[in-house]
């Protein structure tokens, strides 16, 4: 009964309700603008809400978080510029839909699916948090490494066209991620003794450049062509559409919650893995993936919103952040006089249920704000290109600067923009570059941690892998997915099926 009371706190207090709504609304727009990130918004809010009570402060932050994760899909669909790293996969199929004039449908499906994903994430948080966090703690460095390898195998799904070019792009991404002072030993890598390279290359700057600027440059080819008129008659997807994709969305939400709950991995990796999963399980998509398949929207969007609930799991049960935003929220709770840690659930269970309540509310507001105002958003893509292109450039520059208030990042961003333009021109996919940058540290750090723990003995390392069921399962998944992408698989499959026919 008391639990229910705390859960309902946010629903019964108009001030809190307003703050969650305000936060979600702001979050959708913060998320939609590339470079303005939820992490940034929440850390600004820490100072801003210092003198407030803890409930209103947390309400506002949760609203921004939920709205922001969803908002990233907006620009991904409309402009092919993901507003946040977790929306990269959304652009792959969302933008082709917008090009065909179906931006309204794409946004509608995205919104409803984000809502479903968000709820599954919250549900797992509310009902199974201690269980999931125990599972997440079991991940050893070698498991994170295997997970990163699993992620790198996504290059296959992300490279439309030539796989070789995809692998090249992925490798480039991993190299970009390695630049700067190594966080484990402080040794300089690929810095060529330039001080400005010591801090590494900002991953957000690479993303904005590769997607934003290169898109603007590419659009220059069609400056005189008219923009596609968008059909916005049907925004809310039909019940049949939702029903059709429900099984997939449950699967991808599960991926989202799990990856979100692992400390060190977040919505970006979850969305990409979910996209890959959808590509593998969908037998006959209405349209090919990369050409506007609905499944290609459903998967990443359910996963990244489910990852929000997931990220709160280790935060609430152990005081360990599930991602960058929850790390800041832990700081916020501390500033407000709470002791975020494993005792929080025992000392202050009200906080847990209050946060669950806020998340539910924010998720509902997200649906509301997502389905309204679409008309206004689709107008953006209908703007003449001579207005749109400078606007994209402006947003890219502001976004790149805002990440670290660093002009160096703007130069990196512009450089990668021009580079990305030529990559596209010659048919190199950009998705794998970003994938490589995201996974570079995860792979590198955890491989070193794993092998250092075994005193650099490969024999002991593999003994560890096969001694743990979790590692073994991950290794088998890596091997299976790898083999399934090689000709050996097709050959083996045809042999087996051929035999069956003979008998």
């Amino acid at each position, binding site marked *: 009964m008391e639990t229910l009371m705390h859960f309902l706190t946010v629903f019964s207090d108009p001030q809190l309700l307003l703050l969650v709504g305000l936060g979600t609304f702001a979050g959708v727009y913060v998320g939609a603008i590339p470079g303005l990130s939820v992490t940034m918004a929440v850390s600004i809010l820490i100072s801003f809400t*210092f003198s407030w009570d803890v409930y209103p402060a947390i309400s506002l932050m949760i609203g921004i978080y939920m709205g922001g994760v969803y908002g990233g899909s907006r620009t991904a669909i409309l402009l092919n510029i993901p507003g946040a790293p977790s929306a990269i996969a959304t652009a792959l199929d969302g933008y082709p839909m917008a090009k065909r004039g179906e931006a309204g449908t794409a946004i509608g499906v995205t919104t409803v699916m984000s809502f479903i994903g968000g709820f599954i994430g919250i549900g797992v948080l509310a009902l199974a948090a201690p269980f999931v966090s125990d599972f997440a703690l079991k991940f050893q460095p070698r498991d994170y490494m295997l997970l990163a390898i699993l992620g790198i195998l996504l290059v296959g799904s992300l490279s439309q066209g030539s796989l070789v070019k995809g692998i090249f792009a992925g490798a480039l991404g991993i190299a970009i991620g390695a630049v700067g002072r190594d966080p*484990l030993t402080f040794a300089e890598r690929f810095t060529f003794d330039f001080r400005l390279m010591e801090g590494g290359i900002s991953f957000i700057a690479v993303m904005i450049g590769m997607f934003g600027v290169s898109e603007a440059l590419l659009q220059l080819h069609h400056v005189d062509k008219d923009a596609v008129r968008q059909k916005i008659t049907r925004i809310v997807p039909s019940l049949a559409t939702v029903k059709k994709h429900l099984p997939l969305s449950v699967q991808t939400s599960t991926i989202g919650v799990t990856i979100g709950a692992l400390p060190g991995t977040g919505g970006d990796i979850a969305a990409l893995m979910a996209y890959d999963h959808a590509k593998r399980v969908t037998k006959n998509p209405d349209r090919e993936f990369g050409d506007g398949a609905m499944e290609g929207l459903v998967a990443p969007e359910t996963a990244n919103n489910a990852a929000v609930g997931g990220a709160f799991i280790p935060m609430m049960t152990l005081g360990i952040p599930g991602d960058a935003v929850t790390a800041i929220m832990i700081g916020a709770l*501390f500033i407000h006089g709470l002791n975020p840690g494993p005792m929080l659930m025992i000392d202050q269970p009200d906080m847990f249920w209050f946060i669950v309540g806020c998340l539910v509310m924010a998720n509902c507001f997200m649906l509301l704000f997502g389905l309204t105002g679409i008309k206004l958003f689709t107008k953006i893509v209908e703007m003449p290109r001579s207005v749109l292109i400078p606007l994209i450039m402006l947003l890219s520059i502001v976004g790149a600067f805002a990440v670290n208030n660093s002009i160096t990042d703007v130069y990196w961003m512009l450089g990668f923009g021009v580079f990305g333009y030529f990559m596209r021109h010659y048919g190199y996919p950009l998705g794998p570059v970003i994938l490589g940058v995201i996974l570079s540290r995860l792979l590198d750090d955890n491989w*070193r941690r794993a092998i*250092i*723990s075994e005193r650099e003995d490969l024999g002991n390392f593999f003994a560890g892998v096969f001694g743990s069921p979790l590692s073994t399962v991950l290794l088998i998944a890596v091997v299976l997915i790898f083999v399934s992408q090689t000709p050996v698989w097709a050959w083996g499959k045809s042999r087996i099926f051929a035999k069956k026919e003979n008998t």
Partner: protein
Amino acid sequence: MKRYLIGAISALALTATTVAAEYPEKEIQGIIQWGAGGSTDTVMRSVTPHAEAALGGTVVMQNMTGAVGAIALNYVADAEADGYTVLMGAENPMLYKIMGLGDKDYGEFVPINILARGTPLLVANNDAPFNSYSEMIAYVKENPGTVRFGSTGPGGLPSVVTAMINAVEGELDVIAVPYDGDGPALTGLQGGAIDVMPAVLGAAIEGVRAGNMKALAVFDTAENDKLPGVEAVAEVNDGYNTYLPWGPFFGVFVPKGTPDDAVAKLSAAYAEGAKNPEFIELMEGRGFTLMGISGDEAEAFLSKWQQGTAWLLQDAGLTKASPEEFGIARPGE
């Protein structure tokens, strides 16, 4: 003409004095050396609003991360010394020179306030085959090369604590597994990826309270009242008294050459802010020892800290350049 000139000069002088008297006349930029949500960030964001009230001005705080905080340090050092750019940092810059991370340290700054100091704590995974510091030392000596210690790279707290143990107890054969921060390392500790982690008390205390990890020892001269019954290393081995008390600290700094008026006002404001009961409660709850020192006292603290730590790391062979090269004298010389 002459009269005009005198008039103009006196007018200028007048405006100049009024401007100086009114410091701060615009927003002050506070550069936090570490990321949002980290301990430096939380400490600064909790004390600054109270200091703002005392100062009657606004401090806009901003996180500037990268290169172990050197980017933020260089940014503030290169900014105009007018009291409008303030560095909010931790102990790391004192080791930049010897670790080859930069050519500047707090020597180029005036300390406004050294707010607080943390106490290092040795924690272990619950399944580790030892329950106290003495048992751990005995176990490591019997089983060389099997115990995994978490670390956060050369110059970080774990490396200093490990160097201290090696200096006092003789070389211990342990595996140092590097993590990028004490948060991830403590997560790894709970999952069994590492066995022992030297961490600041505040970061580990909630985990110890909940029984998710066990405390082996506090690195202090006496037991800590937050953790009764956990032995203090100096009581176990007298050799530690040479180095303790030692701990990471948090402080607010402005570049050298900042007008005295601004330094005085900022120092007064932060001294006042650090006295706020809410702030004190917050810091004590996290096991920090409040210091609140400034001026000569802070300078003396900084140079003593630097001497002790730099030579400890030098003797452990972890440095890139000898402290001697930068005129950092061996403690006691």
